[in-house]
């Protein structure tokens, strides 16, 4: 146990060491914003001030697109509509209700949020083109909406005129004051954006982008997370709109065109769709081109369109992807072999008295489960139990329904009939996100490790759904957030140490070798302190050392109290590990029992060495002795 304590402290200190730079960045950011905000006093001329304000507005718009496009993997073309909503709501407030830029910016942000929710709820059901078109269409609707709303409210196609000069807390703002206000608002939002994406929320979003299976298996709802990112991404656009209303004190429908959506997207692509600080560069570049080509908007179109094509092809994997591609070009073989050889060298820890923290294992019972796909029967009345503290192996030939069974247990497929229950609760009617929250963790046949996370973050992500932190606590980095984040990283570190993988923890998870990724996945499934661990062919593709290491860890896990269900092809491993074996064949349970019994079962023998083991008369039992002699 003493070794473990040391490791924990080491884990703590790494996290603590990271806190100081965070303070520095925050302080630095405040200083930078303050300096930019007072540049007019240092002699920045009016024309440049205006360009800086327009760039700041563009920064707000691009950060919104990045949240959706980069972090949620969906394309938001409705930014101009959200921008317009902010502008018109802000303008209306300034004229008719209250002329205060703070109120206007907040109201503008909320108005845009509403547009985000209205378009996101249907559009994100399918995502992809559908969201792009739904959000694009709202932009087409802007002129019609302005026609329909009475002209004395928003000014129809003429535009909204007579917006008063901006005021803050009842005091009129000078042009320098307004400049400073715009910079401060942008600076604050930028910090909010950074804190959202560099957090557990950002990690969750990267997981959501990794395809349909991973997020739900970790208890994360893809739809809800995408909707959150998309809706929150609307807020800065609305804020920008309210600022714009005070800048020109006139708003016309011609400011909110499809062209603007393309500009913002181009800026996002230039900056990198998951970028943070480069957004400022992207926004400034687009603003620069716009000023240059204002008389020949067509040139701007050609330039931005070409940027989208090049960016879409080259930067689809993000800046990180580009870096990795370059690395491959420079040292293709060393890169590959290096990763593989370090993986084999991973030292197995042999302190056999170590015990995982107790895992709350629960009885998993499958009762008479039937599953058909269309007309084909995949499972035909399967019943078995997996007990806590035991390893239950599901074996059987390809296509016998093993993986289908796992997918039913963790809620990917609904049952056609029958029930699956965990302890007292029936889980067979729950969606997979809810099953995961009940404590069912799993791994996949092909490891699913999201792009953009370090190994330790991948492991910690197993924990994301079990401890939710309010978005506001994440944005403000309240102590609560810090505590949760620290403790989950420490736990992840400890698991990695136990698996002998701590040397990889700062490496990008998806760049590791297959065997290591498999072990990382296992570590992730343990991070949630699961009741049930479902392992789908976890040993395939591992070398001998890795398999031994895996077996050791799985014993620890089951000893800690978890219910382990193992789908495995490799009978030798099953025999050495499993307490109970369930043999599936043609979608039904052929037999079940302890491995010693199973390996003597004639029907199993026949199926295991192949469908026609009878042909040559050799049996699996005879083989081990041959090997032992041979060695």
């Amino acid at each position, binding site marked *: 146990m003493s070794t473990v304590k040391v490791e924990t402290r080491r884990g703590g200190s790494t996290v603590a060491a990271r806190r100081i730079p965070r303070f520095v960045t925050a302080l630095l950011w405040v200083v930078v914003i303050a300096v930019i905000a007072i540049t007019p006093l240092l002699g920045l001329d009016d024309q440049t001030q205006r360009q800086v304000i327009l760039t700041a507005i563009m920064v707000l718009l691009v950060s919104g697109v990045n949240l959706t496009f980069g972090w949620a*993997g*969906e*394309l938001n*073309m409705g930014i101009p509509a959200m921008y317009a909503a902010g502008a018109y709501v802000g303008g209306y407030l300034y004229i008719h209700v209250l002329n205060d830029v703070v109120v206007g910016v907040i109201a503008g942000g909320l108005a845009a949020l509403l547009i985000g929710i209205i378009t996101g709820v*249907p*559009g994100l*059901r*399918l995502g*992809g*083109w*559908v969201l*792009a*078109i*739904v959000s*694009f*269409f*709202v932009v*087409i*609707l802007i002129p*019609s909406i302005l*026609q*329909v709303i009475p002209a004395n409210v928003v000014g129809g196609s003429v535009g909204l005129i007579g917006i008063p000069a901006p005021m803050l807390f009842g005091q009129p703002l000078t042009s320098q004051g307004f400049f400073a206000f715009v910079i401060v608002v942008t600076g604050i939002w930028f910090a909010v954006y950074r804190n959202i994406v560099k957090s557990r929320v950002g990690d969750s979003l990267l997981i959501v982008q990794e395809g349909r299976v991973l997020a739900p298996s970790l208890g994360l709802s893809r739809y809800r997370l995408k909707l959150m990112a998309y809706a929150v991404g609307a807020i800065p656009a609305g804020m920008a709109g309210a600022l714009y209303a005070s800048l020109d004190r006139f708003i016309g429908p011609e400011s909110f065109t*499809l062209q603007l959506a*393309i500009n913002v*997207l181009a800026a996002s*692509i230039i900056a990198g769709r998951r970028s943070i600080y480069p957004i400022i560069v992207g926004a400034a570049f687009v603003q620069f081109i716009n000023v240059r080509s204002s008389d020949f*908007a*067509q*040139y*701007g*179109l*050609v*330039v*931005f*369109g*070409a*940027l*989208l*094509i090049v*960016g*879409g*092809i080259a930067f*689809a*994997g993000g800046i990180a992807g580009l870096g990795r591609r370059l690395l491959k070009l420079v040292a293709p073989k060393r890169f590959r072999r290096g990763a593989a050889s370090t993986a084999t060298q991973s030292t197995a820890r042999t302190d056999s008295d170590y015990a995982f923290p107790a895992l709350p294992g629960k009885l998993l019972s499958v009762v008479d489960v039937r599953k058909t796909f269309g007309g084909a029967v995949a499972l035909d009345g399967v019943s078995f139990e997996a007990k806590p503290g035991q390893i239950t192996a599901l074996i059987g030939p390809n296509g016998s329904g093993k993986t289908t069974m796992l997918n039913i247990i963790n809620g990917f497929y609904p049952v056609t009939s029958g029930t699956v229950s965990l302890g007292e609760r029936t889980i067979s009617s729950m969606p997979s996100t809810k099953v995961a929250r009940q404590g069912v963790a799993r791994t996949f046949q092909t490891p699913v490790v999201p792009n953009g996370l370090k190994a330790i973050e991948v492991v910690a992500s197993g924990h994301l759904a079990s401890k939710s932190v309010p978005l506001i606590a994440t944005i403000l980095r309240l102590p609560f957030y810090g505590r949760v984040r620290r403790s989950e990283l420490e736990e992840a570190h400890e698991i990695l140490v136990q698996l002998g993988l701590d040397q990889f923890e700062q490496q990008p998870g998806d760049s590791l070798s297959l065997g290591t990724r498999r072990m990382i996945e296992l570590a992730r499934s343990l991070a949630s302190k699961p009741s049930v661990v479902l392992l789908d062919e976890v040993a395939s593709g591992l070398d001998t050392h890795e398999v031994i290491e895996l077996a050791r860890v799985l014993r620890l896990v089951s000893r800690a109290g978890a219910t382990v269900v193992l789908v495995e092809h490799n009978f030798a491993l099953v025999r050495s590990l499993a307490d109970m074996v369930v043999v599936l064949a043609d979608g039904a349970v052929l037999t079940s029992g302890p491995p010693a019994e199973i390996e003597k079962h004639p029907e199993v023998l026949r199926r295991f060495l192949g469908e026609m083991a009878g042909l040559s008369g050799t049996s699996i039992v005879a083989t081990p002795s041959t090997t032992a002699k041979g060695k």
Partner: protein
Amino acid sequence: MITSLWAGLATGSIYTLIAIGYNITLTTAGVLNFAYANIVMIGAFVAVSGLALGLPIWAIFILAALVGAIVATAEERVAVRFLPKGDHAELITTIGASTVLTGATALIWGNTALRVDLFPQVPLQLFGGSVQPNSIILIIAALVLGVGLHFFNTRTKFGLASLAHAFDRESTMLRGVNVRWLSIVAFAASGALGGLIGPLVGMTTTATPFIAITLAIKGFIALYCGGVGSQAGAIIGGFGIGIIEALANLWLGPNYGDFAVFAVFLAILLIRPQGIVGTRMLRSV
């Protein structure tokens, strides 16, 4: 009322034609070509130039189809061929291609809307409403092309191969089909088709670079509501959207057409996400 219906069918035929063009590349190359409407507009502009040069009508159509095919093939080479898998990358690159084409057409032919006068337009009286002869041509063209391509897909070797490609790219390759070539041919064919109908569409909408994106979006809605991948769906979706738009403009007021289309689109998204005649196929779109 009848005149409105005719108008609805006329715009609906344009949406149908756009949706059909989307389907061609979708079912063969697996890519929705957002720039397709731009190619149609280029066809319209070619007709404007051809008329100015005094070319005969048949030569104008051939030229428009040729230009369309060249532009679409170039687009495939530049913006589609090297796409990375996943990541919705073709959203970005085909929207990018559409933007480039919008800018390029504006640079070549200018920003203003130009009339395309292939032949004199004298409104006809049919079933108690008035309708332009060109609209009748477009309606017939949409129906014929939709039905024709449906049969092409189901009856010919190439149609079958493209259908197979949409289901399973790798297995199709293993039947000896050069799927890269299939993708080029699909783009070239859809481009030729887009160029060919461009002059007719231009007669109704005028030739103007900035209308392309609106047509592209409405065409997508038609495609989606009908059912992605189905030419029958394109016909139903296209004409349906056109009629709804026309009737909403008639009954509710001139600004309500787009609202009605949007409402129908959202309703279909929520109630029947696979489209009216769609299946699960090509759900990734």
